[in-house]
């Protein structure tokens, strides 16, 4: 299958430095050219903090078969669709019931556009065969339309005999008539021809039947050239279609004019391979850059811009939706009984909102009460201790400098008596002087 045209690319993941330095490179991943989105996503998801998912989409907007010449056929990822009178709708239905559905490829058609999608991100390769008057139109995600007609890149190899066998051939006598054919890189198969064919058409059909019976179903087409020679052809989406006749018995050689030979005439067909796109979910702190050379040929741009996945709300879905289901996300105007915000407000009671380490509101308040209570209690105890000291100090001061009334009263009595005694001495002295003076005079 032809690979997509993505260039080889190298992607580097960085982790932000929590301390504010420059980001540190943690992983480098290289993709070879032509990697499918699925392979890229698988490789990227291995890195921690990165989650990648891939998907591929291809739009076909027109099928044009004019009814003449070769039947238009599409070969999608190896499965061939060549019903006559194909429309987008009928093709979609056929694809959905074919083995492509097992590969995860689905088709959706509304009559105007057929969208092929691979939910796994595998490449979708379509090639178109037919003749030059038939075509298929594709539309890219940017609205660009490409028309492939029945002749173009892809390849077809054929080889033919040299004898006109439109009158048929007779293999019933002589023999054994054997023919060994190999296509592309597959092992050769040998067929044995034994019938009597009366026309070129029946001869071609008979040989085709023999070849199909060996398991080369659909890989080799047997027909007649315009000059009636028997022709074998095979197609390939790459440019390397080849068909080799490696063993021709003498009878076959003489009847059909075949010799051991390789492909003669390789022409190319048109093919379109679409690579997928990738959604990357990076954990916060991770960034990435890419070694882009040609922006159009790469999966990522050089510095992909990351968008936040936080829309302010989150939804989760469960179960299996079917086509046609719709889910609407909107504001619920009129939802007056919705108490969920009120409930969240009430839950603040339990939230650890204040302090270090964080505590709930009531715990913080209790802590405050305790702190104040202890301080007040301590202060009361201190006051009592100081009061005691004050009293003792006062007592000692009073003991030295205070006045005791009784002591003063006692002293007063003593001083009064001393005064009386002293004044008695004076009166006796006066009496003595009087006696002496009276004795003289």
């Amino acid at each position, binding site marked *: 299958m032809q690979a997509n045209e993505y260039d080889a690319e190298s992607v580097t993941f960085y982790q932000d430095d929590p301390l504010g330095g420059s980001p540190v490179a943690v992983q480098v991943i290289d993709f070879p050219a032509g990697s499918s989105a699925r392979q890229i996503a698988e490789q990227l998801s291995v890195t921690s903090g990165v989650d990648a998912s891939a998907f591929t989409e291809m739009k076909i907007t027109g099928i044009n078969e004019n009814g003449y010449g070769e039947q238009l056929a599409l070969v999608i990822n190896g499965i061939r669709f060549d019903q006559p009178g194909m429309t987008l*709708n009928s093709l*979609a239905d056929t694809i959905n019931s074919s083995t492509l559905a097992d590969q995860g490829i689905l088709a*959706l*058609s*509304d*009559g105007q556009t057929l969208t092929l999608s691979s939910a796994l991100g595998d490449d979708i390769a379509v090639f178109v065969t037919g003749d030059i008057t038939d075509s298929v139109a594709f539309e890219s995600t940017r609205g660009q339309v490409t028309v492939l007609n029945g002749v173009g890149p892809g390849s077809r190899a054929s080889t033919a005999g040299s004898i006109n066998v439109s009158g048929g051939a007779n293999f019933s006598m002589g023999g054994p008539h054997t023919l060994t054919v190999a296509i592309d890189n597959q092992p050769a198969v040998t067929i044995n021809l034994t019938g009597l064919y009366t026309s070129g058409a029946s001869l071609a059909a008979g040989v085709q039947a023999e070849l199909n019976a060996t398991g080369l179903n659909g890989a080799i087409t047997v027909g007649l050239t315009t000059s009636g020679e028997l022709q074998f052809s095979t197609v390939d989406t790459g440019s390397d279609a080849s068909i080799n006749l490696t063993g021709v018995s003498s009878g076959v050689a003489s009847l059909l004019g075949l010799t051991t030979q390789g492909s003669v005439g390789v022409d190319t067909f048109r093919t379109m391979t679409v690579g997928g796109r990738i959604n990357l979910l990076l954990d916060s702190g991770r960034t990435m850059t890419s070694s882009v050379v040609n922006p159009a040929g790469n999966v990522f741009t050089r510095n992909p811009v990351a968008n936040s996945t936080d829309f302010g709300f989150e939804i989760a879905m469960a179960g299996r939706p*079917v*086509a*046609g289901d719709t889910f609407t996300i909107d504001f*619920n105007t*009129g*939802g*007056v*009984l*919705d*108490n*969920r915000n009120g*409930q969240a407000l*009430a839950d603040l009671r*339990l939230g650890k909102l204040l302090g270090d380490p964080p505590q709930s509101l*009531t*715990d913080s*308040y*209790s*802590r405050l*009460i*305790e702190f*104040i*209570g*202890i*301080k*007040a*209690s301590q*202060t*009361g105890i201190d006051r009592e201790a100081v009061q005691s000291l004050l*009293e003792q100090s*006062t*007592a*000692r001061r*009073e*003991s*030295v*400098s*205070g*006045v*005791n*009334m*009784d002591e003063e*009263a*006692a002293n007063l*009595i003593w001083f009064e008596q001393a005064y009386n005694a002293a004044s008695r001495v004076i009166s006796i002295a006066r009496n003595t002087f009087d006696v002496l003076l009276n004795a003289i005079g």
Partner: protein
Amino acid sequence: MRISSYQLNQQGINRILEMSQQTAKTQQQLATGRRITTAADDPVAAVRINSINEEISLREQFRSTIGLAESDLKLEESTLDHMVQVLQRVRELTIQSGNAINTAEDRQFISVEIQSRFDELMSLMNTRLASGDYLFAGFKGEDKPFVQDATGANVYHGDEGQRVVQIDASTSVAVSDSGKHIFVDVPAVNTTVVTSAHPNNDQTNSGTISRATVVDQETLDAFYPDDLVIQFEPLLNGAVSGYNYSVRRVSDNRVLSGLENVPFDVGDRIEVAGMEFEILGSPRPGDRFIVETSRTQDVLTTVERMATGLRTLGTTDEQRDIFDALVGETLDNVDNAITSILEVRAKIGARLGITESVDFLHQEIELISKQMLSKLRDVDYAAAVSTLTYQVFVLEAAHKSFALISRLSLFNSL
């Protein structure tokens, strides 16, 4: 140590002051009944008292919430009970109407009674709480949930919200159920169809779509779960007479074969995928009409269809067959509705059980908390009175002794 007169005086007074302070404190305790008047009296106990108080008030609040929840739930329960009774009666009437000997008149009578049961059901489904909010409207309590629109279809205007209240620190209980869950999402025996106009249609020239009738049940069953969109396309040839529409299926937006750009006349009966409906009024290019298939049928429509069938289906063989099928279908759908209601009723019973046991728990814990609070905070009267008596005695002794020695003075003897 030498005692000065001043010292003697002060010493006496200080002790009296100290004693009277203590007495006053004890008196305060006795008067308030509290051992702890300020946090300083016992800081650790003060904190504990604070948290026990919070616990008690929280439990009281939860109990009051439980009271409200229980009253809402009991209202819901009794409403649902009532509805089951009504539906049982409808069931009886349906069975009765299947009786072959009914005359056309009998059928009219039965139809009238079923119609009045329909009205009863609708008013029960629009029950209001004491606060005036609608019980079954989900979160949209101010809008009447169950109404009939212009085409006669039964429409639910509420949402699917379920109110939940917290009755304990880690227990919540639902106190409502949305009408959609109980009455609208009732499994139907046959695939049903609902039609509507897209909300973005041109409102000034409004086209409308009639209710759809099922003409081929098997085709419709096969078409389910896909839905249809009838889209009015740009005018053909630009002419005023060129109104046309295309019918697409919603799953992949594909136009159904033969139904692209169909010329439109008002009143055309459109038949697609076993359904038939009309588009009336004046739709404009760009208008869309949605036809949705469903495996559910709301209980009002089930009852209404039976009443209508009794009224309109006559006596031709074809109509008889349709009528018999309708009777069977109605019985099954009514049973499904009753089952749906009983399931919710059982849930309500379980919720009431939870609220009862949680209420009991709150009561118990409140009691224990109050006891602990009392132990920490309240004064022991016996001890306090005895302390006060002692303190008063000591204070009296201090007073008397002070008076005695302060009279002593040597001056008195002089």
